[in-house]
């Protein structure tokens, strides 16, 4: 089986679209998730427990459920039907943003919380203002936050149910790696399906290497601290 044979321009555009959609979703997730996550970690207010519980629940939202809800909202007869976003890359970005934002938010929150316990007292005794203290803690938590971003990206790019529903797997328009794998398998083009699968695996591997390095780095740092 010659895998190079099936690696043509079409496959390349599918890979690029996958990366584009998931990266956009991650950026949206960063803009929303990191500030709110840090805020939740650093502040105390009544009812916070409930919000935290809600965030953790949303971290495990089934992607296909997100897909159905977005589909119904963007459908011609739905509340956002006038946008005409159904079966477009925008719809897929929307679905993936909803998928990754709680993950980034939740993991930022736990990373910042872990550092907060370590540093707050020391920072206070050194005379830092609350803003300076918050900024330092967030900076210290960056490895945990990056690990969260890696996890979120892995979830987004390997997700298939939601993007199939709201994107529609249209050739040259909304076909991404995961939906292409399903189609190629259904058509019996196993080599192409496998090629795309390997690319997906490679991307996931690279991301997870960063993730693992981050975790190891974190552990080492804590050991030094003690």
């Amino acid at each position, binding site marked *: 089986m010659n895998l190079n044979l099936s690696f043509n321009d079409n496959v390349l555009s599918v890979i690029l679209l996958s990366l584009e959609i998931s990266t956009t979703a991650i950026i949206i997730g960063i803009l929303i998730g990191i500030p709110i996550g840090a805020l939740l970690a650093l502040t105390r207010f009544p009812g916070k427990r409930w919000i935290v519980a809600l965030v953790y629940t949303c971290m495990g939202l089934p992607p296909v459920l997100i897909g159905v809800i977005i589909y119904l909202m963007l*459908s*011609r007869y739905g509340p956002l039907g006038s946008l005409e976003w*159904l*079966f477009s890359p925008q719809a897929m970005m929307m679905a993936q943003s909803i998928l990754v934002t709680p993950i980034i938010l939740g993991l930022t929150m736990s990373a910042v919380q872990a550092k907060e316990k370590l540093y707050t007292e020391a920072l206070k005794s050194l005379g830092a203002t609350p803003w300076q203290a918050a900024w330092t803690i967030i900076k210290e938590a960056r490895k945990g936050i990056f690990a969260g971003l890696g996890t979120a990206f892995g979830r987004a790019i390997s997700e298939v149910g939601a993007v*199939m529903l709201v994107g*529609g*797997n*249209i*050739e*040259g*328009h909304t*076909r991404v790696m995961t*939906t292409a794998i399903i*189609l190629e*398998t*259904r*058509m*019996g083009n*196993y080599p192409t399906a496998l090629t795309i699968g390997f690319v997906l695996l490679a991307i996931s591997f690279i991301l997870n290497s960063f993730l693992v390095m981050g975790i190891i780095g974190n552990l080492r740092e804590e050991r030094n601290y003690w």
Partner: protein
Amino acid sequence: MKRISFYIFSLFLLLGLLIGCSSAPKADKAAQDTSKPAAQATDSKDKEITLATTTSTQDSGLLDYMVPIFEKQTGIKVKVVAVGTGQAIKIGQDGNADVLLVHARSQEDKFVQDGYGVDAYDVMYNQFYLVGPEKDPAGVKNVKTAAEALKLISDKKSTFISRGDESGTHTKEKSIWKAVGINPEGEWYVKAGQGMGATLQMADEKGGYTLTDEATFLSHKGKLGLQVVLQGDPLLFNPYGIMKVKSTKKSDSADQLIHFFVDENGQKLISEFGKDKYGKGLFVPSAKKR
């Protein structure tokens, strides 16, 4: 060394015993249940065969209606793998199925010619419909043939949703484009790469035209704003074929399944299927040896 081979031997013995125990009662039961041809199947392994077929036969409910009757008559269990025609044929080529029931005549003929299939029969046919939005922006309702209709759609650049998945329906659609001499391309021609149900929904959402098999369209009718804009062109007939995979090791059971579909009785069952629900049969029987 001796001990190891003793253990391995006893392991196999145990496995054999387990398999023997679990399959034997089933065979007895089947023999009791059925009055006649259960004895025709040669051994118990032969009692389970795989039928690779297209999603349309499963989605329309035809197989859920036919297969249990066959299983009851013969005691042979049928595992149905419902996929796109392209994959069904591939599964047959790889020897992962015993019988194929598909609808893409050119691919079927190639399958037999290449020596992968034998005993091919026509089984039945249904119709394809050209469906579109009620407003009919391309004016397809004014013409009588599929060729004229597709030409109008491409001239007006009205949205057309193609299955784009090498399924039987997609193969049929491509053959009509070829007959008109148009190579559909551009913004208006959308290759969905999905099943018939999802493609119909997409056509509904986008206000486009699409080619659909009768059974899937009828079963989705209440949920869609689409209308039939063209039917009755002989070009839109959708013949299904059944054939045996040459490499099958369960030739007897495979023959029985094929004969069940093409014999008088099976043909009668096919003609009656769907009458109560849709007022007319979803498939027209047309058994003929090729």
